Structure formats: structure tokens, C-alpha cells
């Protein structure tokens, strides 16, 4: 463990490097911008843009990491999970108290009871093994290969936990998630956002209404057509200054969170280093609206 003095020394070193690199980046961006402008003026009329080839592995450009519970030593007890058809579903939305009724309306076909409550070294092969103790249901309006729900009770009352399958799934474009799995398009009830400063530094969440839903739908359409990418350094992306957090509430009571980060990145909880990269102006416009 570092002493306070050692930590401060490390912090001040990191700070100096951080600001130096930021200055360098700004200079590079400025230089590249000037050079690009000069070149563009010269060759614009003869420029031909070939479509980018997507390198595909099997049928999809990208696959999420497989979740192996037996290797999640010390961490699996934080990961609310359910094993179903050899896939590990992880916790997403929870309904209880005032939202319980909405959650109950989502419960469909009863699959069975969770096997046992496990905290560590869970067996990924054991059907219906779960951290939760409850009854497993299909969720109305969603494919069982993507989303399931568990109904349970505790001292605080009834609850419904939704769990989503991001275990080794294949993705090409945003549509594979936005349309195919989450059914967002055409089902939006309300869209709100939090500024990044509020999300990051304030203890009290302040949500603002996203009033221009037509513009937001255009954003979603472009998002659906944009490709998934896997980034090498999450830290570099999450530390960027201009960000926005969007919450899409659907008519069925579910909510999806999108985090927009300058540079065209859109992250969705559960996907780790895999995110959608947008190049369209609508991304910049939407991000600007979240400031």
C-alpha cells in the first residue's frame, strides 16, 4: 500500500503527464486539421471514397466476451446472474415498490425456480443457477435468448429482476441491440438526460426532458446503422470531458441507458469495451443537447 506522500507524488506525476499529453494532443489536432484542410482543397474533386470493409468473424463483426463464472473469483458475488441454456444472463433492471406493477406486467411464461444461491465459483453449466432466489420467467415482448426475469420476495417485499444475455453474443451494428433485442424504435414513452457533470460529481440526480423526440429518433436510426467496435483503452474514453447520459423509457416500463462520449462513442451498460462508433453529425448535435 502507498503512503499518503507516495500517493500524492504519484498523483502529481500523473497530473503533469496528463496535462502535457493534452497540450500535445491539441497541437496535433490543430496541425492535422490545417494539413487536412489544405489537402482537401487540392484533391477534393478527384477524391474517391471506397466503402470500409468490415472484417467479419463468422456472421458478426464483433463478439462480446464469454462470461465464465468459475473464473470470476471474488467478483461473481457482485454480478447478479442466471444461467439459462448455457448462457450467463446478468442483472439489468430491477422493479420493486412503486415500479413493481410494471415489472409484474412483463412476466410471461414460467420457466422454473432458480437452483440455488451461489456467491463464488458458480458452475456456468448448471441450468437456472443464480445469485437470486426466485421464480424465473420469460419477459413479454423480448426474446428469451436475450432477456429473462426473476420474481422474488424478501423482507422488503416483492421484486422483479430482469437479466440480459451479453454472454458471447455477436454484434454488427447498433440495430443488433437497439432494434433486435431492446425493441427501442417505435416504443419510446419518454427520453431524459443527465449532464455528465451532474452524473459524475453531484449526489443529487437531475434529469432533463429530451423534448425534440423527432431528432432523437433520427439519432437512434443512425445509431442503429452504426458499427460496433471494441476499444483498447476504456480509460482514455471514459475520461473524456464532453459526455452525456441518456435514459430511454419505453412504453412497457423498461429503461435503457446510453452514454455518449465525445469522438462518436456510444456505450451501453453490460457491454464493457464494446461500443458503437458514430460518425454522423447527429451524434454531435445530440451530445450538445445533453450539456
Amino acid at each position, binding site marked *: *500500500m502507498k503512503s499518503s506522500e507516495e500517493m*500524492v507524488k504519484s*498523483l502529481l506525476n500523473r497530473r503533469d503527464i496528463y496535462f502535457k499529453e493534452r497540450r500535445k494532443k491539441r497541437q496535433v489536432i490543430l496541425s492535422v486539421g490545417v494539413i487536412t484542410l489544405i489537402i482537401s482543397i487540392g484533391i477534393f474533386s478527384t477524391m474517391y471514397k471506397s466503402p470500409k470493409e468490415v472484417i467479419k468473424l463468422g456472421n458478426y463483426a464483433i463478439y462480446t466476451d464469454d462470461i465464465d463464472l468459475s473464473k470470476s*473469483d471474488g*467478483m461473481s458475488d457482485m454480478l447478479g446472474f442466471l444461467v439459462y441454456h448455457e448462457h450467463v444472463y446478468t442483472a439489468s433492471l430491477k422493479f420493486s415498490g412503486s415500479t413493481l406493477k410494471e415489472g409484474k406486467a412483463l412476466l410471461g411464461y414460467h420457466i422454473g425456480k432458480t437452483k440455488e444461491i451461489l456467491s463464488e465459483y458458480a458452475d456456468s453449466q448448471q441450468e437456472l443457477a443464480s445469485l437470486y432466489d426466485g421464480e424465473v420467467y420469460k419477459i413479454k415482448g423480448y426474446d428469451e435468448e436475450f432477456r429473462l426475469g426473476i420474481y422474488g420476495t424478501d423482507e422488503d417485499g416483492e421484486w422483479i429482476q430482469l437479466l440480459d444475455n451479453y454472454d458471447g453474443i455477436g454484434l454488427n451494428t447498433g440495430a443488433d441491440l437497439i432494434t433486435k433485442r431492446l425493441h427501442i424504435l417505435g416504443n419510446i414513452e419518454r427520453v431524459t438526460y443527465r449532464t455528465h457533470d451532474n452524473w*459524475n460529481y453531484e*449526489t*443529487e440526480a437531475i434529469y432533463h426532458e429530451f423534448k425534440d423526440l423527432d431528432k432523437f429518433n433520427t439519432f437512434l436510426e443512425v445509431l442503429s446503422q452504426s458499427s460496433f467496435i471494441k476499444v483498447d483503452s476504456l480509460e482514455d474514453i*471514459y475520461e473524456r470531458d464532453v459526455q452525456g447520459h441518456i435514459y430511454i423509457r419505453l412504453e412497457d416500463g423498461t429503461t435503457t441507458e446510453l452514454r455518449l462520449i465525445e469522438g462518436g462513442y456510444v456505450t451501453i451498460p453490460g457491454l*464493457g469495451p464494446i461500443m458503437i462508433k458514430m460518425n454522423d453529425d447527429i451524434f454531435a448535435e445530440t451530445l450538445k443537447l445533453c450539456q
Partner: protein
Amino acid sequence: MDSGAKYYKDYLDGHDDALIDIVSEYKDGLILYLNSYVKNIHLAEDLVEDTFFRLITKRPRYSGKSSFKSWLYAIGRNVAIDYIRHNSKMLHTPVEEVKSDKLIETSLEKSYLKEERKLTIHRLMQSLNEDYRNVLWLIYFEGFSHKEVSLIMKKSDRQLKNLLYRAKQSLKSKMEEEGLNDEE
């Protein structure tokens, strides 16, 4: 203005020395708090350093609506949650490292908590679920008010009240198993 807020203002005014005051005052408690999220003392220490790093590079505005400490803990919690969200699938702690980590954790607990009874209770808390551990830690070990804890943990007053009740019940049964009484 509490002392943390004063140190932070001094830092923003260009006094790097104030950083040592902030780090000395809050480092150990924040490490133990974030350890209750990530259950890895080295990772918790890195996340605490990242929390301070965020303060000194992004220089966020401290509004003074809550104490500096609860504001800092809420930022630390965001850093930890962000990390967990995006790394939980990839995290492994090799078994051979667990023992030495435990020794370091125990030594930090001893220097921070000092009293034997507090140490025992803190150890029993480790077997509770994450929310229970966190609420008990913030209220009984860090001395935050219920209002401050509801802000840090992003829970409503009612949710916090229920959570605290259940956490105390769970801890009570753990203490009974160990033959301890539950006087506060």
C-alpha cells in the same frame, strides 16, 4: 466550510501542498469503502487514486450542498461503479494473491478502525451483501448522516431506511452466530 472543502479550495487556488492534506485525511477510509464494492484491496487503492486524480485534473465544482467528505465518497463510488460495470467480466484475482491481500487489508483495518470490537464487526460485515456492507460502513464507521448516505448511495430516504433495517438484522444474526451481543 469543513476542512476538506478548505483543502480543496486551497488546491484549486494553486497550492499543491493542500493535496497531501486531502489524501492523508480521506485515503484510508475511502479505500476501505471502495473495497466493499470491489473486494480487492489493491484495486480499491487504485480506484481511490483515480478518484483523487479526477479531482485534480477535472477540478469539479464543489457546491457545498453536502459535506466535502460525502461529496468525495460519492465521486469515489462513481469511479468504482464505472470500473465494475466495464470490467467485471474480465476480473480475476489469482488465488495466491488473495492471502497477501488479506494481510494488507487487515493491517489497514487495524490502523483505521483501531478498536477490536469495530474490527470484529467490520470482518463480519464482509460476508453481507454489497448494499448492506456499504450502508453499515457509511453510517457506523464513517459517521455519515442518513441524509448523506442516501445521497452517496443514490437511494431514497425510504429505501435507505429499509436497507439499514435489513442490514442491521443480517449483521445481528452474524454477531449472534459469533456469540457477540449487538449493543451499539
